[in-house]
């Protein structure tokens, strides 16, 4: 694995607008900090092999190698990543579904894992004051529940894992995050430098489907101008609505996606991962007939075990994924890869220079051709 200095993280990731704000480089050392939606290098570190660059999902990403290391099988460019099962699921607890973004599967699974002692705590995103989300360590059902709901904003959650995992009384940690955050954790797992990082404490990773994330503070400032009232929830309904629903205490306001897209983090346009391909369990929303369900992809044995036990206990219920939903999901996943490589090549002007991707040229040609 290539390793680079912290200055190279700044030069090759942050300055090139490739930073996803996953937070993988923060909380490890005093040098990198997150401030106001940006990662800053406060001081120059002279280490040539830094964890910051090693864990960064935007430095030297070899999907083939990573997939073999994590799942022991080749990476699939066509599907939704290595998996053991794809189905629909939802929480059976009305208290959870009432607060959830969609159907409450993530919250229910996490509560189950906590109750069963599979994890003693979890790193999640708290979107409490509805201004700027923040990563938190949760260790109770109430705290897990408080983290339900999506912010659509990028926030450096992995920082919290980096910090929180250091605490001795945390021995089994769960994590809920976006594909880029999951990728950072995956790189930590694969790293030779992992002994400095208590990544071994990470027991369960739930990935969230993600198309893109919005930038703070520009999006927050935009919303403050558009909607002065406090915001309770965001939602993007399925295609072809092309709109962001913003719920306040009083009403729902609709903002056309065209007005939102300028606030998407530039780094998201070169992201290939829709479904968090290296999580134990990946969860997204349902579409069409099953819109009150979550789409669930189980990738690891541990993921299978957690889902099966939660279902057996009646905490979640499942059903088959409709054929058209599955093919739409696969197409969407493939399209995100196409989008990523098209934008990368547009950025560099060459199929030889793929920024952070290490991919065979013929695969790039194939992705770009169709």
């Amino acid at each position, binding site marked *: 694995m290539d390793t680079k200095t912290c200055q190279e993280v700044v030069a090759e990731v942050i300055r090139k607008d490739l930073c996803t704000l996953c937070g993988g480089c923060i909380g490890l*050392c*005093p*040098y990198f900090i997150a401030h106001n939606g940006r990662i800053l290098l406060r001081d120059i570190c002279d280490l040539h092999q830094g*964890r910051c660059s090693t864990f960064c999902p935007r430095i030297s990403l070899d999907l083939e190698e990573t997939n073999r290391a994590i799942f022991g099988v080749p990476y699939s460019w066509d599907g939704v990543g290595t998996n053991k099962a794809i189905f629909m699921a939802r929480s059976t607890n009305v208290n959870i579904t009432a607060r959830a973004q969609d159907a409450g599967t993530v919250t229910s699974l996490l509560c189950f894992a906590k109750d069963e002692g599979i994890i003693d705590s979890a790193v999640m995103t708290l979107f409490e004051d509805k201004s700027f989300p923040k990563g938190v360590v949760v260790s109770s059902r109430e705290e897990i529940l408080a983290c339900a709901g999506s912010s659509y904003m990028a926030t450096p959650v992995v920082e919290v894992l980096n910090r929180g995992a250091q605490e001795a009384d945390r021995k089994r940690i769960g994590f809920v995050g976006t594909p880029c955050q999951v990728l950072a954790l995956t790189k930590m797992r694969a790293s030779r430098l992992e002994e400095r990082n208590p990544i071994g404490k990470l027991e369960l990773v739930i990935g969230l489907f993600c198309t893109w994330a919005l930038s703070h503070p520009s999006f927050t400032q935009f919303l403050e101008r558009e909607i002065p009232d406090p915001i309770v929830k965001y939602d993007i309904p399925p295609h072809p609505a092309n709109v962001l629903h913003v719920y306040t205490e009083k009403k729902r306001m609709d903002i056309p996606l065209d007005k939102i897209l300028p606030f998407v983090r530039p780094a998201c346009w070169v992201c290939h991962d829709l479904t968090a391909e290296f999580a134990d369990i990946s969860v997204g929303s349902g579409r069409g007939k099953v819109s009150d369900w979550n789409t669930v992809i189980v990738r690891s044995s541990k993921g299978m075990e957690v889902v099966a036990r939660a279902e057996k206990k009646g905490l979640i219920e499942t059903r088959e994924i409709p054929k058209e939903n599955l093919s739409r999901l696969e197409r969407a996943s493939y399209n995100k890869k196409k989008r990523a490589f098209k934008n990368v090549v547009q950025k560099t002007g060459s199929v030889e220079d793929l920024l952070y991707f290490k991919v065979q040229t013929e695969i790039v040609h194939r992705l770009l051709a169709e």
Partner: protein
Amino acid sequence: MSDIAVNAPKTSQLLMGNEAIARGALEAGVGVATAYPGNPSSEIIGTLAQVAKELEICVEWSINEKVALEVAAAASFANIRALSAMKQNGLNVALDFLANLNLTGVSRGLVLVVCDDPGGISSTNEQDSRHVAKVLDLPLLEPATFQEAKDMTKWAFELSEEIANICLIRSVTRISHARGNVVLGELPLRENHARFDTSRKPYASIATATPPAFHQRLHRDLSRIREIYEESPFNWYVGPQDPELLIITCGSGWLYSKEAVEILSRQESVGILKIGTTWPLPKAFISRHMLRTKKILVIEEIDAFLETNLKELSVDLAPGRSLTFYGKASGHLNPFGEINPDIVIHAIADIVKVNYVSKEVDYQKKCQRMIEENIFRRELQFCAGCPHRTTFWAIKDALKMDGRDGFVVGDIGCYSMALGSTGFSQIRTVHAMGSGIGIASGLGKLNSFGFDQPVLAVCGDSTFFHAAIPALIDAIHSQSDFLLVVLDNAGTAMTGFQPHPGIDMSATGDASLPIDIEKLCHALGVAVVVTDAYDIKGTTQKFMDLLRIEGKPRVLISRRECNLIRARREKPLYKVQVNPEKCIGEACGCEKFCIRVFKCPGLIWDKNTKKAKIDEAVCSGCGVCVEICSQEAIVRE
């Protein structure tokens, strides 16, 4: 009783050059002595301040060198002998006044001592102040020994009174700061009463006559000085009747030349003409010696001042006679940096064609190698517990978080070291005292050209009084967009903690009226915020807040007494320790964050445990590193 004030004529004392100058002034019956501190000149007034009460003289640390010279001149006008001391940069500050004072003249003896800093050991520049004597047509003396430093100073008062004008003395670091035996003279009885003679014609170079008329008088007076110099005991010759090579030297060059001739055993063929009165040159005296040789080597520090003037003199002296000059123009000496006996030896050896082999070949290279191998490489650093370190830490973080490529314009003081890693390389410009604020003010007016970077100017409390105030007023008047950071550490720290107008104590230790920078800023109508430099988080936040305000000047006073001053008075604030259980050593922040980045000298590395450790002898107990440690391994009790 301090030694410098002892009235024991003909006894000998080991004195620093600057102390010898101070003693010379006392033997001349100086009544008023002023300066703004600046090395290598600071000890002259520092020494006099210590004996001021005892000897009933008036000594002050003035706000700046121009005011220092004005205060001293006033004493002279009122019939009191006075002395002002400054470094070469300071002379520039005083020059505007000096270039008028020379025309109006003075009354009682007024001596201006300028200490040059060859090699810029403690200066931002390297400058040969002797040129000023020539430009302003004033007499100049250059002591070559510690005895001369005292004797010349005393004599300078007499010369000054002879022509009723200022007499200049030029010292250099190795004269001012080295020590030697000095035979004392008598201390006079305190005499006169100060009175300004209103019947005298005004001290003004306009109205009573035109400036050229005064200028003409200067030249006439200088001719008189030249005649006196012809007989001066500060000029002498040692060597053979008709030397193969004549060394003409002054100041620190005398001892170097003497040593060089002895080492080469050339006393029989190389003569040394030592000149103490370097402007105007005693033509006849020098000519007599120049006519006895064909080769002249001029040894002096910094510029070819003596060399050029001797060449000028030689043209009139012996038309058609072939005299060859060696020195800076020939490349035997550099017109910059310090000189030393080795340089002089090599110059002589080359001219008289002696094969000189030093006792050890490449000795200098060997020394350099030994230094590199055996001595830990140290950078210029803020002291342990220095409040500047924490202020620059906050500045660094605030500018990063602000994210608009803001930067810091520097000034003169300990904090100039923030050019380097001890201040996290934050400073982008350093010039003269107060210039940082002027430059920041200028940058803050460029908005119409699309300039949008935040600008911070830093200056110390003493620098603020010295020269920052006019630039600040300029900025307030024009609403220039920048943040002035006054690093108020309650003293003129870099030159040795001299008091300044912001301090409630005078040079002589008496109570004095302190000027409050904060109140002054309020009165000037500029927004001012005060912070404790040790409160890193709070100070960073204040920087962030002030950076967000745009379109006008703002002032942040980062206040914390210099830790060296505090430590003289009090015990450390905290006992600081590193908990080795918590310290993660080399893994911390990719290699020892506290030692490698924060860089307080109180934090050291324990090779055995591979953990950080507090050097108890160095730690000042400020406790700030507790905030820096990401592992909460540093604790304060």
